[in-house]
């Protein structure tokens, strides 16, 4: 899995690419944990290049949202394709995560500006 990030204002956008499964989710977990340790409090994950996520990947996001909410931060997902969105929906996670259709909306929501829902 490829990973990159991009700072937009005080929002950090993390962009994983490919499959987030048991193996790659560990990489994602370390990547995100390092950013949170580095002081990131507003985090957007750009999911537009992710074509599959397993429960191990969902667990990383769950951990992230609990940590960020615990410290007054923001965590928003954006750009999920139909099949990835279905995985979130199936697990009931659309009620747990802030999800926006695209990354710009996700960034606006994480920044605290008038975003989507």
């Amino acid at each position: 899995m490829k990973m990159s990030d991009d700072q937009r204002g005080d929002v950090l956008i993390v962009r994983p690419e490919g499959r987030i499964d048991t193996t790659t989710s560990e990489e994602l977990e370390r990547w995100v944990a390092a950013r949170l340790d580095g002081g990131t409090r507003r985090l957007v994950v750009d999911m537009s290049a992710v074509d599959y996520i397993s429960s191990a990947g969902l667990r990383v996001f769950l951990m992230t949202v609990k940590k960020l909410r615990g410290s007054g931060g923001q965590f928003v997902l954006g750009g999920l394709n139909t099949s990835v969105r279905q995985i979130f929906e199936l697990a009931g996670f659309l009620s747990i995560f802030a999800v926006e259709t695209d990354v710009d909306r996700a960034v606006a929501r994480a920044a605290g500006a008038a975003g989507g829902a």
Partner: protein
Amino acid sequence: MNPASEGRPGEATLVRNMNSLLEVSKALGAEARLDSLLSVIVNKATEVMEAERSSIFIYDEATETLCLRVSEDLAQGQIRVPLGVGIAGHVARTREPLNVPDAYADPRFSPQFDRDTGFQTRSILCAPALTNAGRLIGVIQVLNKVGRSAFTADDESLLAAFASIAGIALDRARLVEAFLEKEKIESSLRLAHDIQMGMLPKRFPQRPEIDLFATLRPAKSVGGDLYDFRLDGDRLWFVVGDVSGKGVPAALFMAVTKVLFGVSVEVESSPAAAMGRVNRALCRENEHFLFVSAFLGRLDVGTGELEYANAGHNLPYRLASDGSVSTLPASPGLVMGVNEDFVYRTESTRLDPGDGVFLFTDGVTEAIDGKNELFSEARLEAYLGATKGWSPVEVVAGALRALDDFVGAAAQFDDITALSVRYRPD
């Protein structure tokens, strides 16, 4: 001996050194365990180098620090030195030997060790221990040349040679330890797997009105699928679940979940209430953010009434007696272990005589073939559509066969679980 060489003072030393190194490599070759090897290295370094003391620092790549592992009079593992700090830290950074004739005149020298131990350091010779591939394993340091004020240039090349032999021996010992550690982990995984499989009921309920069969095929790395069932008077409870992640934590979480289901269906009156009880218990002690998806059903074997609750699990299929296949309509709910206040819903349908249900985990639909393609709901539905009149054991066994045909030689990544019930009153 060639008489011509007698006049060259370096020659005798060289031969003696060569012999010492041969001795050292023999001694190191005989010792494969890391701790013993470290003691041998320190003792041999003191002996061969004719020093008063020796010590060895092991390099920790993750933290970029040196850790003092063996020295005659200091507790092991107590002293950590960052790369670049002190004499040893300097050698670790430059990967070059360093000869310090007068320690107290060198600003890199830290007199703290002397203060702590009462030892009086005069001269230091220090060399890096590298692997064949040039990776830093540690640093060997010898103190105070016996009978001389400082170590010589000959000593420098001798310690460099000694350190390179020690580096290779240490690298090998680390490989051996890593291998043994891996063996240990694998045997604990095998144990977790046996515990997991041992918890699954294998004796299926014997009632004329129902026919039930289930199977769980674990992935090589232990996962956390589960199934369970219980006949309680005229009511058949059954559940299929899937814990997030893999390995021992998932297997333990699975075991806890299964036990909780066993208790909850005895004390609660509806699938949603039982689900809620399991969820609250799982939320209480869940520091690792594990979660479990599950589908819990309760079939009244007298009436065919099927009540169920869903916790973020793949929707089961209804296998009608006419051969048609449809998903059981259920709200998604939420996986358990995430939100202790979540309220689950009991939904219901009625099975007609001859109807069945098929429950599964995503190890079925997300199995991958050699071309990275998923088995998918579509293939599962197509398979189930061709099972009209089959018994649950035939449906489940056939599903695994269809999966095997599809996957071919590709590795199994996830646990695969399937459970089927058929309602067949007289």
